[in-house]
């Protein structure tokens, strides 16, 4: 297990600051570089969370930062999620730029009161006097056999809440640079890192210095069908699109990147060009972000559709531990491909 989730202890020199040289790095290293850059750029920034310092982070994202920035700015907390998330909110209002890490999204439920009743609400409740420039990072998603209390994808839940911004880096570039955009935002931003992506290697785009957190991005253009997705499912969609190409089906892959606010314009543009949509979301299907996107498409682009909107979501069970059951519960390239093919068959038949 530790082999899977602990990063190799390598210093990542390239990609810092200027972003001049293209560099290969893991998603984990990219996230760490984002944190390091933030700590260097602004003395108001500090990190706070469980085992982020001496331990190096449950998923090793913060490894080495304690040694570099000291215990005041890389602050280990006790297992008091409500207290340290609320402390992040208070410190943000009090003039600092906290980055709070919650070990997994399941644990964030212990801080849900603070996230909803304070972070998302203070601005409105105070008539605009108070804003909360706080970033909360948390690990989300399944695929490592961590069973039913460490594997869920609740980012769609959080996207229900006015006052929050919800962002989901799915690429090395976004893992590296979304944090800076989140810190520049005057409102609370929840940033979800998928546990299955931490070991994914990729090339940081040469010359890239920043990304926004406002727009969805087409990761692969296509004409026949749109796969609308985000986060950990992005790579399943890209793999599915490759295989569909072999069957002469040209799939577009749209990476939402931000779940609140949704980039409706880019979503509808994709729908109007492809006319068929499969939404791939690791959340449970009922009441999901996939359901929200479906509704918006029906509301705004119904007559552009050649087939009903389809969804590939996680089976409606708490995630089981055994690998065969976990795999079966989650979206997979195979399920995506099957869904696309049945959609095309239906729309051609119609």
């Amino acid at each position: 297990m530790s082999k899977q989730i602990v990063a190799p202890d390598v210093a990542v020199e390239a990609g810092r600051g200027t972003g001049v040289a293209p560099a290969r790095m893991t998603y984990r290293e990219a996230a760490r570089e984002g944190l390091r850059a933030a700590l260097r750029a602004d003395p108001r920034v500090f990190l706070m969370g469980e085992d982020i310092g001496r331990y190096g982070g449950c998923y090793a994202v913060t490894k080495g930062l304690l040694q570099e920035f000291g215990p005041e700015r890389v602050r280990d907390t006790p297992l008091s999620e409500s207290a340290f998330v609320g402390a992040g909110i208070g410190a943000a209002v009090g003039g600092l730029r906290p980055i709070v890490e919650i070990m997994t999204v399941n644990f964030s439920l212990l801080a849900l009161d603070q996230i909803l009743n304070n972070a998302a609400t203070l601005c409105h409740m105070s008539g605009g006097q108070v804003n909360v420039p706080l970033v909360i990072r948390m690990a989300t998603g399944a695929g490592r056999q961590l069973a039913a209390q460490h594997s869920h994808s609740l980012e769609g839940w959080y996207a229900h809440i006015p006052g929050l911004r919800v962002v989901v880096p799915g690429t090395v570039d976004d893992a590296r640079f979304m944090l800076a955009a989140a810190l520049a935002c005057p409102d609370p931003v929840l940033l979800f890192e998928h546990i299955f992506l931490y070991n994914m290697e990729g090339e940081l785009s040469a010359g890239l210095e920043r990304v926004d957190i406002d727009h969805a991005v087409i990761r692969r253009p296509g004409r026949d069908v749109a796969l609308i997705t985000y986060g950990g499912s992005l790579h399943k969609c890209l793999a599915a699109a490759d295989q569909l190409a072999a069957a002469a089906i040209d799939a577009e892959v749209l990476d939402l990147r931000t779940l609140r606010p949704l980039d409706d314009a880019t979503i509808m543009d994709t729908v109007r060009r492809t006319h068929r949509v499969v939404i791939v979301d690791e959340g449970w299907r009922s009441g999901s972000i996939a359901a929200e996107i479906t509704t918006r498409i029906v509301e705004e682009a119904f007559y552009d559709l050649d087939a009903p909107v389809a969804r590939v979501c996680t089976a409606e069970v708490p995630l089981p531990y055994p690998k065969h059951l976990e795999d079966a519960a989650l979206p997979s390239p195979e399920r995506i491909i099957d869904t696309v093919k049945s959609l095309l068959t239906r729309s051609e038949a119609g």
Partner: protein
Amino acid sequence: MSPAEPAPVTRERGLALLREMLRIRCFEDRCVQLYGELKIRGFLHLCNGEEAVAVGTMQAIEPEDAIVSTYREHGHAIAHGLDMQALMAEMYGKQSGTSRGRGGSMHIFDSRKRFYGGNAIVGGGLPLALGFALAQKLQRKSAITACLFGDGAVAEGEFHECLNLAALWRLPLLFLCENNLYAMGTAIERAEAQTDVAGKARVYGMPAEVIDGMDVFAVEDATCAAAARVRAGAGPVLLELRTYRFRGHSMFDAQLYRDKAEIEVWQKKGPLITLTTRLKALGLMSEDDYQRLEREARAEVETAVDFAERAEFEPLAQLERFVYAEQAP
């Protein structure tokens, strides 16, 4: 931890404290009438009986300090110097209210005075206060955070999480537990296996004291001493201020859970009676003085009501404002 030197009881000090307590009492009593007239709606939690806690504690607060309060916060806000007209406009839900009318009675904010609510989740303000104190410490400020909460919050996990963290990190945080003996309708002895709140704080390694919350001089002396200690960097302190709520929990409370006799006993040792009796006995105040202060307080409240009556409601077109910040901080 014993208070340094209690301040002497003088006519000037006594009348100043009494004046503030009367302003609160008159405001609250007027709110009752306005609630009956349907001018004020929603949940309305009044602090009659707890004025000495509000006024005594707020004497220790410096302009740079932060305050986090509860949904029973009218008294704290008035004693801290928030504008009474804006407060009354907030009760009415008007645009010129302290929170532009969006908060109401339970969510009074004034960021210029660092008054950060008005938190209506019991215990929900403690983590926020922890954060303000952490920011003050990291910014090397001499300011402190005062966190007011009731005995009900002691049953919440946040109380324990935050006392532990404040002590562990030696934060400039003054915990002020306004113990009015009831969490809504649940008496503290029906909720807590150990009812000694100050004792719980000591377990977390901070000094704590029980103070007679009906004696405004005692509250002021204790809070000033505790605030000085916190300000000096010695870490958090908790004061348990024993008081009593004369009215129901909110305007919907039939008070089935306590005897009228119990309320009468407490009313006899109420903060206003205690203070006026003492000042008169010491020859520091006449009945005329009292009548004058009460008249002035009533007049101020009436001015606030006039202001609120005349104030505008926020236009409907602005419904969705203030969900996100409108300008970068």
